[in-house]
């Protein structure tokens, strides 16, 4: 399982077929990550009603693949984080065995815990009275030490060997944080899947269709919502030009905005609301003048 080739060999026993373009590729990990046939089939297997149990072959494969030393192969597993977390959270209330999904999520959590040495991730919010590389305050500099607001954006990670239900949101949230750190390498289809699940989790305005599918609101505590909103920000405003992703992200953000209004979650209202307004402004041609355009006046002079 340590090499891409053996990894693909095992996968071929799980999927109906592995295209030769992948198995004979010069960069098999990359092909595995980006091949649309494979990802479509894996995605549909993960969405199968019986997926995610402890003895599920595909979960086993994802778990093993994530433990291979090849970082490229780890990316292949991360590509499915949206579906795994998405399906997992929507099935919690069904009281089914989800040990397969849980094993993968715990592996991601453990990976991140080791990578960070359990330390929290924090961000400084500077006080502009002190100079920075981007500005120099006018007037005499205050002598006192720079006052920084230290914001913890991801708290300390404790090791978790099992999925304790009260830590579930945190463990899934950390898996999403890990996904976010690699998001620039993720295929668009994976991000679209994430946006679609955000829509489902939020279940803000239930359509008849959603009711028929018995989709229900998933509790969205901040530890889950915060990494989701970062991913969503990327999907909406990151440098990509996929219209489909943009639409999916826009719809997901609208749903999450309605959901945060419903939950009266102040921080979430501020975050999703600002994305909503930015999106609206971005589509207004009056506000998006190209300042790099050359002079278009009728008199062409030197």
């Amino acid at each position, binding site marked *: 399982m340590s090499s891409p080739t053996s990894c693909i060999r095992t996968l071929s026993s799980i999927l109906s077929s592995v295209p030769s373009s992948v198995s004979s590729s010069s960069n098999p990990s990359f092909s595995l990550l980006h091949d649309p046939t494979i990802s479509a089939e894996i995605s549909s297997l993960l969405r199968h009603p019986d997926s995610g149990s402890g003895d599920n072959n595909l979960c086993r494969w994802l778990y093993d693949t994530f433990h291979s030393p090849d970082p490229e192969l780890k990316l292949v597993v991360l590509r499915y984080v949206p579906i795994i977390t998405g399906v997992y959270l929507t099935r*919690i*209330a069904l*009281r089914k065995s989800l040990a397969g999904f849980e094993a993968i999520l715990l592996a991601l959590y453990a990976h991140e815990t080791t990578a960070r040495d359990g330390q929290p991730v924090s*961000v*400084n*919010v*500077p006080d*502009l009275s002190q*100079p*920075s*590389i*981007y500005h120099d305050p006018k007037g005499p500099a205050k002598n006192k030490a*720079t006052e920084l*607001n230290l*914001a913890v*954006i991801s*708290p*300390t990670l*404790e090791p978790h060997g099992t999925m*304790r*239900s*009260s*830590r*579930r*949101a945190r463990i899934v949230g950390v898996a999403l944080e890990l996904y976010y*750190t690699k998001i*620039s390498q993720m295929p668009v289809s994976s991000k679209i899947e994430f946006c679609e699940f955000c829509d489902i989790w939020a279940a803000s*305005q*239930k359509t008849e269709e959603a009711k028929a599918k018995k989709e229900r*609101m998933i*509790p969205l505590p901040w*530890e889950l919502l915060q990494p989701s*909103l970062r991913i969503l*920000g*990327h999907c909406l*405003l*990151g*440098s990509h030009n996929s219209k489909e992703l943009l639409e999916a992200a826009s719809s997901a953000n609208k749903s999450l905005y309605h959901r945060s*209004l419903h939950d*009266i979650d*102040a*921080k979430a*209202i*501020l*975050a999703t609301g*600002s994305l909503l*307004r*930015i999106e609206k402004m971005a589509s207004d041609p009056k506000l998006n003048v190209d*300042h*790099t*355009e*050359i*002079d*278009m*006046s*009728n*008199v*062409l*002079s*030197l």
Partner: protein
Amino acid sequence: MASSAQKFITSSFFGLTLIVAFMAFLLKFKSSQKLFSAEELSLHNGTDESLPILLGILGSVFDVTKGKSHYGVGGGYHHFAGRDASRAFVSGNFTGDGLTDSLRGLSSTEVHSVVGWRDFYFKSYKFVGKLVGRYYDSQGNPTKYLKGAEAKAARGAQLMEKQKEMEAKQPSCSSRWSQDDGGEVWCDNGFPRLVQRPFEIALTGKMSRRCACYSEDQLGQPGLEVVYGFLQGSAQGRLNLPFIMAFGDHSISTIYDLGFLIEAWCTFFQDCRSFNPTPTKIRQCPMQCFDPIPTIQFSISVSLNQSHSIQTMADDDSPPQGRQFSANGTSIPTADVEAKLDKGNIQEAESSLRERLSLNSEEARTLLGRLEYQRGNVESALRVLDGIDLQSAIQGLQPSVMTNSYSNSNSNSSSLSSSSYDNAGANRDSQNQKAAKLVLEGVYLKAKSLQKLGKFTEAAKDCTSVLDAVGKIFPQGISDAQVESPLQETVSKAVELLPELLKLAGNYQEAMATYRRVLLNPWNLDNECFARIQKAFAVFLLHSGLEADPPSLGAQAEGAYVPKNNLEEAILLLLVIMQKIHQGVVQWDPSVMDHLMYALSLCSQTPVLSKQLEELKPGLFHRTERWNFLALCCSGAGQNKAALNILRKSLHINEKPNDLTALLLAAKICSEDPHLAAEGVGYAQRAVDNAKGVDEHLKGACLRMLGLCLGKQAKVSSSDFERSQLQNGSLKSLDSALSLEQDNPDIIFELGVHYAEQRNLNTALHFAKKYIDITGGSELKGWRLLALILSAQQRFAEAETVTDAALDETGKWEQGPLLRLKAKLKVSQLRPMEAIDTYRHLLALVQAQRKALGPMKTDSQVDDKVKEFEVWYGLATLYSSLSHWKDVEVCVQKAREMKQYSAELLHTEGKICCMHEERGEFQEALSSHINAGLLDPLFVPSKVRIGALLPKMGSIALPVARTVLSDALRIEPTNRKAWYHLGMVHKADGRLAEAVDCLQAASMLEDSDPVENFRSIL
């Protein structure tokens, strides 16, 4: 070096050299003080390309060649070129008589404004001499007109200052304007009224009013007028924001200049009735908006699209209908050249152009390239531009400037030869700039063409070469003095375009590096352009998802703050832009605020956001919008009281009383405090009434809040009847909320607690189980509720099993409340030794927690933590039930170390005393309990004990006991002991029927008492 200088001094030419240098100096001085005649000045109006463009104002003459695109032929300010049109700067009349230097009849503020314009030109352009005429005599000395104008301006300034001072005593109204909504004014404190301005007649020769805020008791003052009509009047005008419009001599300022705006509206209002929308004129807004010119220029074209009734200055010039080439004083239409290009005859087109406009090949190619680009023929543009050897042209530009700058840095022992070299160098510098501008524009045009063709990598390469070339030509960086504005324009555009191209090309790492290179090095960009790049970079850092290294430490000045990751860098940049907005250096851009809002809310730093919102000038947001944002910020930081205070303002009947978000937030905050609950009921009810249409989906949330507020209000209700009514209402609301949202875990939980408190234990059990199912057991409070309900049903063993299951699902640090519960369950099952074990376990956990968790821990469960005090107190209670008095005292002492004044402890002490009653400590016991009651008036157990102890003092104390016990029952209607003792009091007093009722209640409750109060979960 030194030896050659020595040689110079000793040479026989030394004296001569000195004299010539001195003369050169004199000449130079003289030339900068040149006296112009009106005829001479008129030659410098931009039509002759070889002459600099000059402009006169109050007799001072300035070289405005660097603003050629505006002052030159076809530019928006061409009227000012080659003449002194001082009056037009304030009158806005740019035709015939209007273009005069006479200021006759202008008010002192207007004259002040003209002088202000002159200061602007001194700051921004080169002063080259004086115009002989009205303001300077033939000797170049100021005339009485100039002195008079300056004195009048000074008087105007003085009066304005005085007016400002007087008016500062009465705060101006806040105001805002939008094209869609028209204008409005308001007061944050007090009421808006129109009032006559004291010095206005002296200043402007006319009456005018302003809008100021008056408190209620000032409203009786004479001369105040209500503002309503004014608002409607102003909404009819068409005002485009970056301009002032002129109606006669009245002007309307920009939204950015708020003090002025109110004044402007008042003037506007007066003229509005007679306002005829056609003969309008626009002139540029006050100086601060004038610079940088390109931005304003651009805004004109936007406003033209928005509103047709307004003519811009550019229209006055009646621009040529078709495209034209213009160079060396000749203009020709582009039509026949276009025809040649359409046939693919580039050579022919070029030679035709060269011939007719006497251009060299590069010049002609650049013009052709621009033409093709403008016509959208980017491929053809590229073919044309490929004909210029740009790279070699750039190379040819470098060395001479290098030597030039070297010679400039020489010492001032400059000789004749050096001085003449300087002149030649300056000449060549200008030549070079002209050539450089042409070449760089060509390369930039190529980059833009490639961009249009989607060839981003190649485009980025060309763009990079523009900037590299600038770097080589100006090794010391570029500054205002060195670079002429057209060249600067190309440089600015290239700087802004390059990172965009790199992003489009997918070269993110390079884009990141370029952004930093651009922002950390001086490119002499104007403020708006710089802020745009900063914003684009911040957005890129926030959303690219790229793991980039933080900026290197080498780039920074000593002691400056260096962000250490993408998010930090983005927040820093956005804050820096916001600061520039606050300082008025750059224009307000709402998207900057939104990006900051996103970033800071993700970091849970909403107080920083509040600060930014508070610093914003009023009018940028609608006030209620701003209040609501502020309330969300406060609430996001847990400052609910502050949030509620703000919401009360925005929900005021005169503001936006039906804003659903604000109503819900206010109701939520109120639902958490029994004393605010009644107010919350009002908000929630309004929310329910307004949850219609697009907000229908919030109906469930609104009903839920109504239910919660009613339930909370019931808690403090003093009448039984009212309480039961409120409780019924609460239940009804929660039920309707549930029917709308059958899977909403919150509602299910709240109904569970509601039923549990009503001792409807079977229904409560159903909801508690459903809650655990639906949340997958992720919520601690669900487990606790279930265990407590089971304990109330006297199913202690099951309750303990539930608690154990919950412990399995819970991380170590969150186990405190469960362990406490477990210990109490052990006590109830009469297994005190196991209870003591559990308490020990809990104690170890609590103490470890205290040590291990630094201030960094921001866990959501933090508030749920069991305090060490509670453990000692629990142990004390346990020991006292075992009559281990020694241990009790140890525990009480430990507990007192944690919390010196505590009702609970006094209560326990009271109990200790009670056990020693025989030893005559009855009084002490009582006083302990009374003290406990004083410390915490809502502490029920002490009240019950007092009620139990008092009857022992004889029948005289019975009424007091009865009152105390009734009070206890008001706070906690389901307190079994209180009912029991009240029954005993009634019995002792001989009221047997009442006694029976009470005792019956006590016995019924005996079977439904949970080990901890249900309220402890919430």
